[in-house]
């Protein structure tokens, strides 16, 4: 149980204690997420994505690892904050608020709502709170209403080039399973159908086997910055959502297709010179628009490890295992920080720590613990198989 033990121990004795120790705001509720290398708070603003994600994480641990009252209480600290300060007058979630809950940035970003819904749903399972359960459903319904125009009045793009984004169908494929306990079974199946179709038929390019970040509504590509954009981490993360759906539907074809796609994306986006997976790429090899394109990000590598471990669990594909070892070694050698706890988030192309932080505006208590948990469970299964060495 080499890998299973490593992921489990790191989750329970490194990652979770880090957030339990440095992030809790017992005064105002919610969590501080801007934490430097050793856990000191360097900015006090609260980003709703990360409030929802941390509340989700602690309820998930309570539901899946151990019914530890402390975890439930830590989750509630965020749930109460989100309910009290997270929403504007329409019930849409702000992007950010001050530490005591005054709104800073309005609800232009629908992912705030997605993570709030995930948090409410997990917390409702953990606590049995029916009000929070009803709220989870309400937020979900609200997300679906906004799906064709997620930014609403904050959309700055004109209609000239109507590219559609991959993020929302991708997150829906995970959100709907997260919310299974609050939604009607028909609704769940309908949304799964929609998101699998979008991910595997619209955004997955048959020619290259890569996932594009934006396409035209009919699935065609557009030769422009956004139309050529690849976000390898996103594509790979979506593939483990597809594998989860494949397992649920006993759809081995979907699992195999996702596995192939993971291999295509990794081959295309691995930095052969310095190691690691690029953050953004241009499908035609032109200079990408994003200046941070060649950085190595923690979540890209962790989501890849989850995808590879799940893929291996259900396919025993040897190419997947090879990649697994490669990404595992890179990630643990570059991102982890056992001395201070948690993982660094941002490395430069050469793999050196770029920002001395464990949390910030976009990095909180989410990808690291979720990946630790997912890899722990996948390898528990894989390593219990005697053929695995």
């Amino acid at each position, binding site marked *: 149980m080499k890998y299973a033990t490593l992921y489990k121990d790191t989750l329970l*004795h490194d990652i979770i204690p880090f957030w339990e*120790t440095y992030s809790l705001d*017992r005064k105002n509720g919610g969590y501080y997420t801007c934490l430097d290398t050793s856990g000191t708070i360097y900015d006090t603003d609260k980003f709703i994505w990360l409030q929802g994600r941390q509340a989700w994480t602690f309820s998930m641990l309570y539901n899946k690892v151990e019914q530890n009252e402390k975890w439930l209480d830590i989750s509630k600290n965020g749930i109460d904050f989100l309910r009290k300060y997270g929403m504007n007058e329409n019930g849409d979630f702000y992007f950010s608020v001050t530490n005591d809950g005054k709104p800073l940035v309005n609800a232009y970003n629908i992912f705030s709502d997605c993570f709030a819904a995930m948090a409410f749903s997990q917390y409702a399972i953990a606590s049995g709170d029916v009000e929070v359960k009803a709220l989870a459903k309400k937020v979900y319904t609200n997300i679906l209403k906004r799906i064709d125009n997620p930014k609403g009045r904050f959309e700055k793009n004109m209609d000239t080039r109507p590219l559609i984004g991959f993020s929302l169908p991708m997150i829906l494929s995970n959100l709907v399973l997260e919310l299974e306990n609050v939604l009607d079974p028909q609704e769940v199946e309908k949304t799964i159908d929609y998101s699998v179709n979008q991910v595997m038929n619209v955004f997955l390019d048959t020619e290259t086997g890569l996932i594009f970040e934006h396409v035209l509504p009919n699935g065609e590509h557009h030769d422009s910055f956004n139309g050529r954009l690849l976000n390898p981490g996103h594509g790979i993360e979506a593939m483990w959502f597809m594998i989860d759906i494949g397992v649920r539907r006993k759809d081995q074809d979907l699992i195999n297709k996702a596995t192939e796609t993971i291999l295509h994306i990794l081959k295309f986006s691995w930095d052969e010179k310095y190691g690691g997976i690029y953050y953004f790429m241009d499908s035609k090899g032109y200079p990408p628009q994003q200046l941070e394109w060649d950085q190595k990000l923690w979540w890209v590598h962790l989501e890849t490890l989850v995808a590879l471990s799940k893929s291996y669990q259900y396919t025993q594909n040897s190419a997947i295992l090879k990649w697994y070892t490669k990404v595992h070694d890179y990630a643990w050698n570059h991102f982890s920080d056992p001395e201070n706890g948690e993982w660094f988030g941002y490395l430069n192309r050469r793999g050196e720590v770029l920002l001395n932080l464990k949390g910030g505006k976009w990095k909180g208590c989410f990808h690291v613990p979720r990946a630790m948990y997912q890899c722990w469970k996948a390898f528990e299964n894989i390593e219990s198989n005697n053929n695995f060495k």
Partner: protein
Amino acid sequence: MTLKNLIAAVYAPMHENGSLNTTRIKDYGQFLLHNDISGVFMNGSTGDFTSLSISERKEITSAWSKSKSGLYLIDHVGDPSLNVAKDLATYASDKVDAIAAIAPFYFRLNSVDKLVTYCSEIAACASNLPFYYYHIPVLSGADLNMVSFLEKARNEIPNLAGIKFTDNNLIDYGFCKSLENGKYNILFGYDELFLNSLPLGAEGWVGSTYNHLAPLYYKIKSHFNNGDMPEAAKLQSMAIKFVQLLDSKGGFNGVAKGFMKHLGVDCGPSRFPHTTLTDEDYKVIIKELTAIGLEKWFNKGIAQSVHTK
């Protein structure tokens, strides 16, 4: 802002030579958060305010304020000299989340009217902050009825938030809690009667043993909520044994402060009249505490939980 759950009455960390060591405060705060503590009550009886100078009390206030954590900060500013108390309240007004004041304890107060006058002058110096009266009649000698205090003080202290209630008069406590439908936050301060405060609806507690045994108190609460009273009572009696055992080694205040080092936060020695023991003494104490099953309820040090290379 909410002020509830366990609030630790914090020690004043000191160097080996007995001078103040505020560099420990940041780690101390993280240790408390790590153990699910929601706030700190600084410069109180546990914090040895009676043996600190005015500037040392301010130094502590400033250090907690600068430590910037998610803890709710209550600063105790009471003093036998009303002028000193007002000075401390003014100093604290832009640094903490609430202030509290004990009654003057040399020329002791014998009327609620006098107490209200004293409190209202202090509260006015930090009118932007919630004010708590620190009721501890055994030490302050102000053995006054707290409902009468609230009824009078509410008209004269606009920022009156409640009482830190350290007394075993649960009848008075219950009346204070229910006044005006629970408008006032009555923080219970008698750790040994934690369980007894639960049926009266207590939601916030301030005490010194939350520095050491927070998991034990959370467990008592959970047993109480599940209706398992015998188990809750058993754990409460363990909390009492903890206090008795440390007390028997030379006085609870000093011995419990020195014990912090063995939980991972070195608070240093105690000042006179409290006792300072040696590491050898604590080896014996820990052995005795372990023998009665208390070790598993200790607060966890950060280094203990965060795994290192």
